[in-house]
């Protein structure tokens, strides 16, 4: 069928890219804001006060008060925790002083109930659990859509996304082979030349962000590794939940500990914290844990956990252990799970990008946008190559049905979906506060607007639909900070004055997105406007006689 490898990969690249392109575009559009999901959720709960970071004043006294409270509320528990005020890369908001505990499991259970409280560090009084925010789907639901899709079972969601991801991996690899001149043409972008420009843009974006695309696709598959490929586990451990217990016990031995009741530690805690801070730096202790130590002698231990920091093995922060009676240092906890688990964690962490600070998160976000750009340009390229008429000629109805279908879906998705995401944020501010399932309605709004965009694309000439939907998307994003200012007190004037860059940054990013879509609208208008195209063609023909053959 194909005479060369490159022809074959070219075919594969084109068609794998096309059939999963829209799903992948959805995955990238919903996954990219996921890098800011905590910040988005905060914006979507404007009732919560702006955060004030306060460190403990008298730490020794606060620790004693916390232990007093733990002894009163959870005597003989399996574990106690004192959470120090901190801000880690994991929570990304200021965490207040508080305590937590795991009770001993009742007979016949593996695990007892847990509890937590926030405490006043000066008096030890239990603080109320906070203001009730509006019910919202938040950044989390938006982020979850990128691997679960929506309106379907978990199993089907991850299967569909899994298949699409696999095909994307294939499209990336075949793409590198197909566009063989990518390294020679590394810096090449020739604007204003129709198909050639689309191809250049597609190549440039794909090549420059190739490390990100390869990483994000491959590590995406690693998330549900054993759902996609269960044969290995099934063969060794069996396929039902019960027989898989030994598997989980081997991978996560720390969850399999037999709880032992603890008592109040005899050693003062402040010197231990001081020791840890001497190694890690001030303010780097996140949690003081008290639980029975297994491994290095059966003693009750005080474990200090470091703030989740900037490391690829981010989910398992450093710890220091001390004997709870004498305060003598204990051997560090052995790392469990072996190299395989570390490899998997690093893969997943690379995908989630939680370990990077604010700058790194913007880099990840930008890379995600490039993913949208790569898929978008690829989809447009497919139609540009195949259609016979310029869109602006108004003759798109004479095109083949397939081309027109792809073109319509392209408009609805590439121009419509970003607008639908803006509608999701608008719904958060505009939906009535007291309705049932408010979070679900925010999501319904997103999909209703997207469906509307599809009908709009069908109802209008395609070139008008492109321009108008980009403009509508621009207006929707531009409106978000305005509606926010009209409906809440967490608007730009207040947030900027308070220096709350999470809330202010969200509003400013919305305007950034509006600017991006406005730019798209202008670019598309320049390309597709029939009168302009005709004038340009006429002007070119008159001004310059044809001089040369080809630039390809």
């Amino acid at each position, binding site marked *: 069928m194909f005479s060369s490898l490159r022809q074959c990969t070219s075919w594969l690249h084109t068609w794998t890219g096309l059939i999963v392109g829209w799903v992948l575009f959805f995955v990238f559009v919903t996954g990219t804001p996921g890098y800011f999901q905590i910040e988005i959720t905060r914006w979507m709960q404007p009732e919560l006060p702006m955060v004030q970071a306060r460190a403990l004043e008298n730490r020794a006294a606060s620790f004693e008060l916390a232990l007093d409270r733990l002894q009163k*509320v959870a005597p003989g528990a399996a574990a106690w925790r004192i959470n120090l005020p901190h801000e880690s890369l994991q929570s990304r908001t200021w965490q207040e002083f508080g305590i937590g505990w795991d009770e001993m499991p009742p007979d016949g259970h593996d695990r007892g*109930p847990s*509890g937590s*409280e926030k405490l006043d560090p000066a008096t030890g009084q239990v603080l*109320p*659990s906070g203001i*009730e925010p509006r*019910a919202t789907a938040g950044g989390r639901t938006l982020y979850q859509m990128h691997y679960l899709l929506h309106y379907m079972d978990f199993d089907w969601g991850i299967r569909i996304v899994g298949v699409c991801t696999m095909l994307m991996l294939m499209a990336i690899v075949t793409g590198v082979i197909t566009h063989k001149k990518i390294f020679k043409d*590394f*810096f090449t*972008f020739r*604007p204003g*030349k129709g198909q050639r420009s689309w191809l250049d843009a597609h190549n*440039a*974006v794909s090549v*420059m*962000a190739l490390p*990100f695309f390869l990483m994000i696709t491959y590590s995406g598959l690693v998330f549900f590794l054993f759902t996609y490929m269960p044969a290995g586990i099934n063969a060794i451990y069996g396929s039902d939940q019960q027989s898989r217990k030994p598997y989980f016990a081997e991978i996560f031995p720390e969850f399999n500990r037999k709880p032992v009741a603890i008592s109040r530690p005899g050693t003062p805690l402040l010197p231990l914290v001081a020791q840890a801070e001497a190694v890690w730096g001030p303010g780097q202790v996140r949690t003081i844990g008290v639980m029975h130590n297994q491994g290095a002698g059966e003693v009750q231990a005080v474990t200090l956990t470091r703030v989740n920091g*900037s*490391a*690829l093995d981010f989910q398992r922060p450093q710890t220091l252990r001390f004997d709870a009676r004498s305060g003598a240092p204990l051997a560090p906890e052995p790392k469990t799970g072996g190299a395989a688990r570390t490899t998997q964690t*690093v893969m997943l962490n690379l995908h989630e990008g939680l*370990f*990077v*600070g604010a*700058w*790194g998160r913007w*880099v*990840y976000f*930008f*890379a995600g946008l490039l993913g949208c750009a790569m898929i978008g340009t690829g989809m447009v390229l497919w139609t540009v190559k195949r259609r016979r008429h*310029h869109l602006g*000629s108004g*003759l*798109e*109805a*004479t095109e083949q049905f397939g081309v027109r279908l792809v073109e319509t879906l392209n408009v609805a998705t590439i121009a419509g979906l970003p607008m639908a995401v803006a509608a999701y944020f608008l719904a958060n501010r505009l939906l009535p506060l007291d*309705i*049932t*399932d*408010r979070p679900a*309605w925010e999501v*319904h*709004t997103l999909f*209703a607007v997207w469906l*509307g965009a599809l009908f709009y694309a*069908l*109802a209008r000439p395609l070139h008008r639909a492109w321009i108008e939907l980009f403009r509508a998307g621009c207006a929707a994003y531009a409106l978000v900070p305005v509606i926010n200012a009209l409906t809440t007190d967490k608007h730009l004037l207040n947030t900027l004055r308070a220096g709350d860059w999470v809330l202010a940054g969200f509003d400013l990013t919305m305007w950034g997105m509006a600017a991006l879509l406005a730019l798209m609208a202008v670019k598309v208008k320049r390309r597709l406007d029939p009168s302009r*195209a*005709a004038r340009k*063609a*006429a002007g*070119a*023909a008159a001004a*310059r006689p*044809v*001089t*040369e*053959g080809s*630039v390809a």
Partner: protein
Amino acid sequence: MTLLHLAILVISLAGFAALALATERHAEHLLGRLPAPQWRLLARVAGWLLLAVSLALGIAYLGSGVGITLWLGWLTIAALALVFAFPKWPLRPVDHARPARPAKAAKPGAAAEMPVAPRRTARRWLAAALLAAVPLVYLLALQATPIAPLLRADAFAGQVGPWSFRLADRDHDVPKLVAMDIPMKSYQVRFCEDCDAQIRAAYLKVNKPRSLRAAGIVLQGTRWDRNVDIQLPANTTAGSSLWLTVVGKDGEMHQAQVRLADVSPATVAWFQQREAKPEAGPAAPQGAIERPSQ
């Protein structure tokens, strides 16, 4: 930190710019003339060196793992910035080498040759009608959405020991049948704001619990949204009650009883109807018995 990231970006920008100068096409484009080969070699070496320096910066300050990851990210941004900036470079040699693409539309008489666009008016009108239907259906459905369960007038307000609470059926529907036809119902409970901090755990079940060990299913969720899915026994009748068992942090246990008919009339009606149709009845009790052996 900001300075470090900026440094990585700027140095890799310089590195890529040098690498671009090392190629014939871009050197000519950027400088307006082609530099001598040794200069281009120098640019190539300098380019790679600069990229290495930015990598070294990243690794030195961020550690090898995070350093390499972010370095790759900044490389992407630097290279793309150059790619899209180059065509705007002012020294660009005047490029008249336009392709000989004969401007078809400009040919005299071309308009006459063009096929006339068929009017797909039927499709357009159908799509426009569907488009109009989307907000209409959306608004009607939104209008029909009831207010949140605990805010409804029929939410049960009661007192359990020293604490006041509200309890409501999540929806007014009949029970949902899960595996083995076991009927399930969701309830929401909210204790008063001060009460909540004094409560260790709360449980809900149908019929009076014999002991705390069988108090029912524990309520989950935040203070304002404690919720629970419970199984309804096959012998549920109009006279059955929900029992809320609450254990305080002081260890005291308190119980309150809520008539099922008061909060879930549809569920009670469903059980009565099932009672009347005996053939539908046996499914649930059987399922309930089989379940533990699973």
